[in-house]
């Protein structure tokens, strides 16, 4: 090994390479004010829209009147799921847009390390985007999602892991099918929104859709959120179901990303990607 270089195998070198990629995307964010504003734009617009809907419904719906924070909590937590998925997919697509994958994958960087860097960047982007909207909601609607207390952390962790899993799957699909499939990054997650019970209880759904909801971590999180906001109880059973499902989802997300990566190596797509 070259004497000017560090060791390449083991946990610390792996962390160093993950950090290098996080640094790459932090440089990108830092150099572009519009990118940071864009991160906060939609969560804030959604929060303001649902904030006013809540103000209206407080006087017209007894259910909302009992728990005025239920819609705003729903919209902010939904954005955690959406932004975490989008964060993974967009950061990966940045590498495709810049035709950088060929250089990355002839460096000592492993695909799993790239995936871990994507998850870390997704966390940073979600905290900036949804965190900003959550803070603006406090003076604007006198509502603090942080009043959910510790359960908020559990909801956040579960939603972000589910978002990561779908983000890894979508990134793999974009790698396999090319940038023609990039719209998947924006639309894929919305397939689970109606079944997740973001704004209404799961028992609103027809029976057969409730079975679908049962295998989504998000539906258990939003049910748990309503239990805290409406009934002031913490449902550990729902949280455990969400966490158990998320173990499977995350493993499937990593597996699909690596499988699509291998297909890309067979088809020669790592070298010939770009705008």
């Amino acid at each position, binding site marked *: *090994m*070259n004497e*000017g*270089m*560090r*060791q*390449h*195998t083991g946990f610390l*070198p792996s962390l*160093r*390479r993950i*950090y*290098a*990629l996080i*640094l*790459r995307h932090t*440089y*990108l964010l830092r*150099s*572009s004010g519009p990118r940071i504003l864009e991160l906060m734009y939609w969560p804030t617009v959604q929060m303001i829209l649902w904030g006013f809907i809540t103000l209206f419904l407080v006087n017209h719906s007894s259910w909302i009147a009992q728990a005025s924070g239920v819609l705003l909590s729903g919209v902010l937590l939904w954005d955690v799921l959406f932004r975490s998925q989008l964060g993974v997919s967009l950061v990966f697509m*940045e590498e495709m847009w*810049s*035709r*950088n*994958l*060929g*250089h*990355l*994958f*002839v*460096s*000592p*960087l*492993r695909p799993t390390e790239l995936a871990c860097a994507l998850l870390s960047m997704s966390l940073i982007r979600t905290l900036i985007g949804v965190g900003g909207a959550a803070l603006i909601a406090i003076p604007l609607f006198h509502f603090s999602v942080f009043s959910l207390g510790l359960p908020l952390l559990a909801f956040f962790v579960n939603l972000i892991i589910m978002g990561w899993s779908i983000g890894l799957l979508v990134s793999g699909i974009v790698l396999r099918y090319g940038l023609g499939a990039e719209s998947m990054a924006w639309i894929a997650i919305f397939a689970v929104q109606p079944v997740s019970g973001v704004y209404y209880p799961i028992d609103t759904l027809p029976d057969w859709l409730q079975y679908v909801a049962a295998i989504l971590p998000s539906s258990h999180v939003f049910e748990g959120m309503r239990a805290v906001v409406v009934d002031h109880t913490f449902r550990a059973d729902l949280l455990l179901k969400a966490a158990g499902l998320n173990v499977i989802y995350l493993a499937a997300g990593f597996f699909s990303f690596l499988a699509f990566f*291998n297909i890309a*190596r*067979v*088809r*020669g797509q*790592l*070298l*010939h990607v*770009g705008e």
Partner: protein
Amino acid sequence: MSSSVVSVSRLCKYFGQVMAVDDISFEVASHSTTALLGGNGAGKTTTLSMLLGLLLPTSGSVSIFGVDMLRDRYRVLPRVNFSSPYVDLPRRLTVRENLTIYARLYGIIDISARIHALTEELQIGRFLGRPYGQLSAGEKTRVVLAKALLNEPELLLLDEPTASLDPDTADYVRGLLESFRKRTGTTILLASHNMSEVERLCDDVIMLRAGKLVDRDTPAQLLTRYGRRNMEEVFIDIARERHLEISLDQKQSADK
């Protein structure tokens, strides 16, 4: 003869029914500069991609530094680097940021010192703070070359290193590669269809045509064998399949 750094055995690549590389075998000697020469679609980039593990072969094997690249490429990649016109660097990041990231990926210990040394060597100091995307083609080539030299690779794979450069910049890049090789003893394998580049830089030439290895020798020996004055004429002979006649003539001479 020095020991071989790259060893390729019966390498094939099919994309569906389309054959891109057809049963090629070769070795690249340590400290040599070897050219993979061939026209468009000859299989040069496909071969380089398989050497690096960016592309999985349909069959055959590749070993670099005696390590099987299909099984254990991460043991080798820290000792290798690569540049190609088909890949780019993040355009919105400055040159310094790009080099810093790749220095970290390659585990360079003193990043500032290494970037400083490359800045001097490649004369990229005046645009270190500029976004990569705002550079001219020649400046970009120098930056990509700086990235490729960051880890002082023992094996450097270059895909068309002077493609789309003006003659002056191309000459500068060739001079740089010559001096780098002299200084470090790095083994270089470059894919090119620029004949003057091959004549100037390479000790050994592997000729590819339609995915097949059709000839191999030093530039001087190829010129003698084909009875030509320069490599461009040899290239045209091979592109027009004259090498088959030459092989037949040689066989008949041997039989007599």
